[in-house]
C-alpha cells in the first residue's frame, strides 16, 4: 500500500517578472522513485528550493505526510531546518558540502537534528552526551560504508573527487533520517561507472524505505530508475506518467526529448 507523502498543489513562484513555477501540482507516494525532468531553466531546482523552505513560494500549498503517521504538515513558509526535521532531506545541484570539515564530520552534521546535546552537555560531557556522540559517529560511519566512502572518513570533503562528493551529499542527507529524499542532479559530472554505482545506490535507498524524488538530465538513468516521471517546462507540468508513457508523449518530445526535430 502506498500513501501520498508529498502533495503539491497550485505551487507558484515569481521572481520579479519571471514565473519560475506556474501552478504546479503533483504528488509523491511512499516507496516510489519519481524523476523530475525538463529543459534547463524549467524550474526544477526552484521547485526543490520552494519545497524545502529555502524559498517561500508566492502561492500554492505544499503538504508533507509522514508514512504511517497521522495528519499532514503544511510546509509553506517553514524554515529549511524544520523541513529537515519533518523528514525531507535534499542534495544540491551545485555541491554544497562543508569543504573544510572531514567526510565523517559532514555526515555527522546531518545527525544534528536527530540529537540533542547542547552547551552543558558539550562542556561536562556526561554519560548521555558521550553515548549520543558515539551513536552519531556510528550512524555516520555506517552511512559512509553504504555509499562507499568508508576508506576516506578523515579526508577533508574538499579533497574528494566530484563523484565522491555527490555520494557524500547523499550520505549527509540520509543522516537526517528522511522518509523522502530529494536529489538534484546526482549523476552530474559522474563517469559511466560511477553512474552505474549511483543507480544501485538509489535503488538500495528506495528498498530501505525512503521515497526518492530526483532531478536528472541523464535520460538513461531516469528511464531505468524511475517508477514515474514528471516533465516540466517553463515552470509548468507538461506531462506525467511511467517512463514508457513519457517517452512517447508528443508534448515531451517537442519540449525536451526531441530537441533534434
Amino acid at each position, binding site marked *: 500500500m502506498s500513501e501520498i507523502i508529498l502533495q503539491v498543489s497550485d505551487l507558484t513562484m515569481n521572481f520579479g517578472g519571471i514565473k519560475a513555477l506556474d501552478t504546479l501540482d503533483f504528488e509523491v507516494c511512499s516507496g516510489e522513485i519519481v524523476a523530475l525532468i525538463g529543459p534547463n531553466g524549467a524550474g526544477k531546482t526552484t521547485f526543490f528550493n520552494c519545497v524545502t523552505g529555502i524559498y517561500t513560494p508566492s502561492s500554492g500549498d505544499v503538504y508533507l505526510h509522514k508514512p504511517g503517521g497521522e495528519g499532514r504538515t503544511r510546509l509553506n513558509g517553514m524554515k*529549511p531546518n524544520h523541513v*529537515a526535521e519533518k523528514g525531507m532531506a535534499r542534495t544540491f545541484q551545485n555541491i554544497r558540502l562543508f569543504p*573544510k*570539515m572531514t567526510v565523517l564530520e559532514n555526515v555527522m*552534521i*546531518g545527525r544534528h537534528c536527530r540529537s540533542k546535546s547542547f*552547551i552543558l552537555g*558539550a562542556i561536562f560531557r556526561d554519560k548521555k552526551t558521550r553515548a549520543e556522540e558515539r551513536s552519531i559517529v556510528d550512524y555516520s560511519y555506517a552511512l559512509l560504508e553504504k555509499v562507499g566512502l568508508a576508506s576516506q572518513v578523515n579526508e577533508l570533503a574538499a579533497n574528494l573527487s566530484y563523484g565522491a562528493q555527490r555520494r557524500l551529499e547523499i550520505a549527509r542527507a540520509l543522516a537526517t533520517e528522511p522518509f523522502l529524499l530529494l536529489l538534484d542532479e546526482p549523476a552530474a559530472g559522474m563517469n559511466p561507472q560511477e553512474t552505474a554505482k549511483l543507480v544501485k545506490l538509489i535503488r538500495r535507498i528506495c528498498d530501505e524505505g525512503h521515497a526518492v524524488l530526483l532531478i536528472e538530465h541523464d535520460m538513461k538513468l531516469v528511464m531505468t530508475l524511475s517508477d514515474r516521471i514528471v516533465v516540466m517546462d517553463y515552470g509548468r507540468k507538461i506531462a506525467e506518467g511511467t517512463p514508457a508513457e513519457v517517452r512517447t508523449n508528443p508534448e515531451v518530445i517537442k519540449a525536451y526529448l526531441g530537441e533534434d526535430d
Partner: protein
Amino acid sequence: MFPLKEFKKSLLVALWFVALTFPLMVIQVDPIERIVNWRWNNMFFVAIGSFVLSVVGKAFFARKEQQLSKKRTAQNEEVQDTIFQRVLREPRYLWPISLACLAFAIAFPFLFSTYQTNVMTTALMYVVLGLGLNIVVGLAGLLDLGYVAFYAVGAYSYALLNHHFDLGFWTVLPVGGILAAFFGIILGFPVLRLRGDYLAIVTLGFGEIIRLVLENWNEFSMGPSGIANIDRPGLFGLDLSLNMSILYLYYLMIFFLIITIFVVNRLQDSRLGRAWVALREDEIACQAMGIDKTKTKLVAFSLGAFWAGIIGVVFAAKTTFVNPASFTFLESAIILSIVVLGGMGSIVGVICGAFILILLPEYLRALSEFRMLAFGGILVLMMVFRPEGLISNVRRVYQFKKNDRGEK
C-alpha cells in the same frame, strides 16, 4: 636560476622605498639649532634592506609556486602537515608539552620581576579574550569587530556594582559574564541575516555605540573621567599587599585560562561546535541539514561575549580604574589580530598569537620609536607568508577498525 629581470624589479622596489621613506628617514629638522640634518647613511640602509627583502621574498614565492605545481602534478600524494600539526595530533607529545608549559607558568613569577609578571597577566587576559572571540570568528565565522563592547560591559558592571553597592569581585564575576552574554544576544538578533562585510560594519558600530554611551552618559558611567578605586580581587578577606595581589591576579588568570581552554576545546569537539563550523562553511546547506541557524549563531555570540565579560571584570579589578578610553576600536582590532594571526579556530594558534601580539611590542621597546613599525612589519610579513595563521586548525581524526565501528 634567479632571472635578471627579477633583480631589476627588486632594484626598482628599493628605489621606490628610498623615495617614500626619504622625508622620514633622511631629513631630520632640528628646531632648536634651526638646521636640517641630512642622514644620508639611513638612505643606504633603507635601499639595501628593501632590496634584500624584496629578493628574498621573490625567491620564496618562486619556490612556493614550484612546490605547489609539483604537488599538483603528483596527485594522491599525502598533504604534508607541518611539524606543529603533527605534534598537536599526537597525545604522546601533547601532554608533556602542556605540563611543561604549566610548570613554567607556575614558576614564572619566581623567575621574573613583578613587572614581568604584570605584563604576563595582561598577555594571559588577551589569550582568554582571543579564545572567546575565536568562538565567534574562528569557529562560527561571524566577523565581529565590536568585541570590545562586551569587554567594556564586563569591566563596567564590576566598576559600577563595586562603586555603588560594594559588591566583591567574585560576586560580580558571573554577573559580568552573564550581562555580557546578554548583550551578545542583543547584538546577535539584528545581525542574524548579515554576513561578512555587512556584519563587520554593524558590529563595529555596536562597539562604538557602547563606548560613546559610556563616554557621554555622565550620570550612569561618570563619563570620560571614569571610575576609580575599584577593589582588587579578594582572597577570603585577607589584606593583600600590592605585590601579593599582582601575584594573586596572575595565578587567577592562569586558572581562568585553563578553564577557558578546557571549555573551548570541549565545545569545539561537540555537536554544537560542529554546527558552528558547518555554519561558517555553508549556511544554506547547514540549514537544509536541520541546523537552526538563529539559535546556533546567537549561542556563538553570547558564549563569545561571556568570556569578554569575565575578562572585563578581571581588567577592572586589575587596573582598579576604568574609563571609556580603554575600550576603543583598536582593542577589538588587536583581539581580532590575535585570532587571525594565531590561526582561526585553533586553540594553540590563538595562544601563540596572543603572546606574540601582546609581548612583542613590550619587548620591542628596545627599538624605541620603531617598535610599532616593526610590529606592523611583522604582521604584514605574517599575512604574506602564512595567511592561514601560525597554526592552522586540524580537524579531529576518528579511528575505525575494519568491521567494527566506533572510536578507538
